[in-house]
């Protein structure tokens, strides 16, 4: 698997804090170390929340992109 191969996609579009973080946490629990979770979000609060959540929980944020109000995050499960 290369660094950008997505294992699972979690679409939180339309949902707001706390659900993108809550659902990201749940989704991550179902993954194996090294798997990559793609998170789709429309809550602008995730711009800060998801990178900081990754930092505190030991996951790696590989990328964050935004296009037309839709945010895409790629997070690798590291622990």
């Amino acid at each position: 698997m290369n660094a950008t191969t997505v294992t699972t996609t979690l679409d939180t579009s339309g949902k707001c804090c706390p659900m993108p973080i809550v659902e990201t946490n749940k989704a991550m629990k179902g993954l194996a170390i090294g798997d990559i979770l793609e998170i789709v979000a429309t809550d602008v609060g995730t711009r800060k929340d998801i990178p900081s959540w990754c930092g505190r929980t030991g996951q790696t944020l590989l990328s964050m992109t935004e296009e037309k109000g839709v945010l895409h995050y790629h997070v690798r499960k590291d622990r």
Partner: protein
Amino acid sequence: MKSMAIVIREDAYDKILTPLVFAYLASAEGTQVDILFVNWAVKALTVEGAASLCMDGRHATDEAMVRENVAKAGLPNDVYHILKALKATGCVNFYACSLAGAIFGVNEGNLIPEAEGIVGASWFLNGKAAQADHCQYF
């Protein structure tokens, strides 16, 4: 942050949402959250009390709109279902203040099963709030 303690006294539907959301967020990082319900908020730890929570004062007429938007955000829009979701994380404990229970009519007979029990405030303040990494009052 490994642990957080919250004391909730406000029982208006809109005002109780924030501490519950903060607890939900903390649980998503594995933080242990202990919540003491005091004053009128202790009623939220009963099925009937949770169902009867409403918005007060000048915001009361906006309650339907608020509940609709809470549901759109992805949360259950009734408090008991939020409490159940928090309990299901395995990181959040609910406690009823014994004085509040005596005053506002909450006892072991009507306490929701998701609650840990009815406790003295001294136990919570010394054993939970003072030991927690962070404490909040609502």
